[in-house]
C-alpha cells in the first residue's frame, strides 16, 4: 500500500474508535449500555442490522464467490424479505412490548428456566464461534499485505474492537455500523467503477458480460429442487427463510439491534431496511466479483491468489514443478485472453467453444497448482477469499485502496463489535444475573457487562486463529449457524406460535431437534440451508408430542 492509503486507513479507524469511545458518556447505566435506553432512530437501527450481517467476510468471500461461481449465491438471500415480513408482525412487537433485554428471557416466562438457559448457551456457543470467523477474515488479508504473524493480526483487529465495544456499549456499536454501511457501499461502487473502466479499450460492458455469461457467471437462478445442491431458488426461498427467521428473530446479535429502537413501529421499519435493500446489495457485491473475474481475464493476475505458502514452495523440492505450472499458466492465460476478446467481438458458437476450452485449461492449471500446494504443505489451501483483496491492493487507485482496506477493517470491527455486545448481554442477563448474582445493583451489572465483553473478545480472538484453517469463510459461518439456528427457531415457534407447548416439551424438543440435525448432517448429503428446516420442524413436532404426553391429566 502507498503512504496515502495508510493515511486513509489510519484516519478512518482513528475516527471510528474515538467516536466509539465518546459514546461511553451516554452509557452510565445497564439499559443505556446494552440497549441504548431504547432510544435509537429506525434508520440507524436498520443500518446496524444490515452492518452486523455484512461483515468483512461479505467483502472478501462473497466477492470471491462471485469470481468463482458467479451470481448464484444471491439465491441464499431470497428468503430474507419474507422472513422480515413475518418477524415484523410477530416477534418484533412481541419482544419490544415485553421490554426484555434478550430473546431468551422470554422463554423463561413462557416455559421454564432450563429452556431459557439451554437456548442462551447454544447462542453463546454458535455466536462465539461465528464471531471468531468474522475476525479471522480480515486478519487473513492483513497478514498477507503486511507480512504479519496471524496472531498479531487478529489482535490488531480484535483489541480496538473490544476496547470501543467494552467502553461505548451498544451506542458505539450502532453508530460504528452506520459509518460502516456508508463506507462499504461507497467502496464497492468505487471498485465497480474502476473495474468497468479497466475493461480493454473498445470493449463495452455488455460484450464483457456476455463473456462472463459464457463462463456461467451470470446465471443467478437454479430452479432444480435438489437437497444436495447448496444454493438453489428453493433452498433460498424455503431453507433460508427458516435460517433468517431464526437469525433475525431468535439470535440475540440481531434481536438486540431492534430492541434499541424507539418504538415498535421504528423496530419494524429497521427490519424493512434489510427487506428492501439486502438482495440488491448482495447482488451488487457478487456482481463485483464477476467484474473481478472479467478483469483477470484481460489482466494477468497471479496463478494463485493466496501467496502465503508460495515462497516456501518456490524454494523447496517442488520448485521446478511449480515453475513449470507457472509457465503453463502464462501460456493458457494468453490463449484465454485472446479467446475472450474474440468472444466479446463475435459472440458466435465457435468463439464461445474456444473460450470455454481455454477457460477450462486455465482452471485445470490453477487446480493442479492448488493440489501441489496442499500436498507440499499438508494443509488446506483456499484461494477464493484472496481474489478481491488482491485486486484492491494491486489495481485500485491510490486512496481508494486505503478506503477499501479501511472498509474491510471496519466491516470486521463493527460486525464483531455487535456480536461481542450481544454475547456479553446474554452472558450477563441470562447466565450471570439469573443464576449467579440476581440481586446486585445496576452499577455492578454494568461493570460485569464490560468485563464479559472483554472476556468474549479474548475468546473470539483465540478461536479466530483456528478458524482461518477452514475453507470458504462465509460458508463456515453459515454452516456453524445452521447446526443450531433451526432448533432455536423451533423453540420460539413453540413459544409464540402455540399455546399447547410446555417447558418439558420445549426442552426435550430442542435436544431432539439438535440430534435430528446431527443425524441428517452426518448421514446424508443434504446441504446446510435445509438443516434449518429439519431443526425447526423436529423441535416443533417433538415439542408438541412431549408437551401432550407430559400435560397434567386434568388439562388433557
Amino acid at each position, binding site marked *: 500500500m502507498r503512504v496515502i492509503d495508510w493515511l486513509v486507513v489510519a484516519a478512518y479507524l482513528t475516527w471510528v474508535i474515538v467516536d466509539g469511545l465518546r459514546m461511553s458518556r451516554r452509557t452510565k447505566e445497564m439499559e443505556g449500555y446494552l440497549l441504548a435506553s431504547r432510544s435509537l432512530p429506525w434508520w440507524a437501527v436498520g443500518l446496524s442490522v444490515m452492518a452486523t450481517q455484512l461483515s468483512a467476510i461479505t467483502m472478501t468471500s462473497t466477492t470471491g464467490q462471485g469470481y468463482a461461481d458467479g*451470481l448464484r449465491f*444471491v439465491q441464499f438471500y*431470497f428468503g430474507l*424479505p419474507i422472513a*422480515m*415480513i413475518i418477524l*415484523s*408482525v*410477530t416477534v418484533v*412487537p*412481541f419482544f419490544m*412490548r415485553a421490554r426484555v433485554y434478550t430473546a431468551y428471557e422470554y422463554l423463561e*416466562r*413462557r416455559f421454564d428456566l432450563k429452556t431459557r438457559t439451554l437456548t442462551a448457551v447454544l447462542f453463546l456457543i454458535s455466536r462465539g464461534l461465528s464471531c471468531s470467523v468474522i475476525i479471522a477474515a480480515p486478519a487473513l488479508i492483513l497478514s498477507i499485505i503486511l507480512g504479519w504473524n496471524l496472531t498479531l493480526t487478529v489482535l490488531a483487529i480484535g483489541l480496538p474492537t473490544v476496547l470501543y465495544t467494552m467502553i461505548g456499549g451498544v451506542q458505539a456499536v450502532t453508530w460504528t455500523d452506520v459509518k460502516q454501511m456508508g463506507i462499504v457501499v461507497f467502496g464497492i461502487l468505487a471498485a465497480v467503477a474502476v473495474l468497468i473502466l479497466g475493461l480493454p479499450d473498445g470493449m463495452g460492458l455488455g460484450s464483457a*458480460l*456476455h463473456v*462472463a*455469461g459464457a463462463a*456461467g457467471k*451470470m*446465471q*443467478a*437462478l437454479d430452479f432444480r429442487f435438489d437437497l444436495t445442491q447448496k444454493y438453489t431458488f428453493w433452498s433460498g426461498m424455503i431453507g433460508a427463510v427458516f435460517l433468517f427467521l431464526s437469525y433475525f428473530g431468535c439470535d440475540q446479535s440481531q434481536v438486540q439491534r431492534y430492541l434499541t429502537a424507539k418504538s*415498535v413501529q421504528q423496530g*419494524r421499519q429497521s427490519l*424493512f431496511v434489510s*427487506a*428492501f435493500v439486502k*438482495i*440488491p446489495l448482495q*447482488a451488487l457485491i457478487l456482481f463485483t466479483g464477476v467484474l473481478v473475474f472479467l478483469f483477470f481475464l484481460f489482466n494477468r493476475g497471479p496463478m494463485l491468489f493466496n501467496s502465503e505458502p508460495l515462497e516456501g514452495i518456490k524454494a523447496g523440492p517442488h520448485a521446478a514443478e511449480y515453475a513449470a505450472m507457472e509457465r503453463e499458466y502464462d501460456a493458457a492465460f494468453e490463449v484465454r485472453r485472446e479467446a475472450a476478446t474474440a468472444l466479446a467481438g463475435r459472440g458466435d458458437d465457435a468463439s464461445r467453444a474456444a473460450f470455454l476450452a481455454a477457460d477450462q485449461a486455465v482452471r485445470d492449471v490453477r487446480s493442479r497448482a492448488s493440489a501441489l500446494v496442499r500436498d507440499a504443505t499438508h494443509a488446506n489451501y483456499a484461494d477464493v477469499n484472496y481474489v478481491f483483496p488482491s485486486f484492491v491492493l494491486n489495481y485500485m487507485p491510490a486512496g481508494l485502496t486505503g478506503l477499501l482496506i479501511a472498509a474491510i477493517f471496519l466491516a470486521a470491527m463493527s460486525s464483531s463489535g455487535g456480536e461481542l455486545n450481544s454475547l456479553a448481554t446474554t452472558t450477563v442477563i441470562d447466565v450471570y444475573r439469573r443464576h449467579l448474582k440476581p440481586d446486585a445493583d445496576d452499577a455492578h451489572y454494568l461493570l460485569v457487562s464490560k468485563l464479559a465483553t472483554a472476556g468474549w473478545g479474548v475468546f473470539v480472538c483465540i478461536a479466530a486463529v483456528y478458524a482461518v484453517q477452514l475453507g470458504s469463510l462465509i460458508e463456515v459461518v453459515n454452516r456453524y449457524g445452521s447446526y443450531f439456528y433451526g432448533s432455536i427457531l423451533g423453540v420460539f415457534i413453540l*413459544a*409464540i*406460535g*402455540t*399455546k399447547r*407447548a410446555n417447558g418439558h416439551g420445549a426442552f426435550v424438543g430442542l435436544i431432539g431437534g439438535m440430534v435430528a440435525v446431527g443425524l441428517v448432517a452426518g448421514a446424508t448429503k443434504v446441504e446446510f440451508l435445509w438443516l434449518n428446516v429439519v431443526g425447526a420442524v423436529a423441535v416443533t413436532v417433538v415439542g408438541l408430542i412431549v408437551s401432550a404426553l407430559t400435560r397434567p391429566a386434568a388439562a388433557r
Partner: protein
Amino acid sequence: MAGTGTTGTTGTTGTTGTTVTDERARLAPTFVAIVVVQLAVILGLYWVGRYFG
C-alpha cells in the same frame, strides 16, 4: 401468540389501543412493496441470466 392476546384478528396491541387488524392493514402496503421489489429483482436476475448466459 400464546399468552399475549395479540394475535387474534380483533385483539388489541396493548399499548396504543389499535387493533391487530388495524396494525396489519397499515403495514399491508409496505408488505406489498417489499414483495414487488423482491419479485422485480428476481425477474431482473432471471433476465440477466437469459440475456448474458
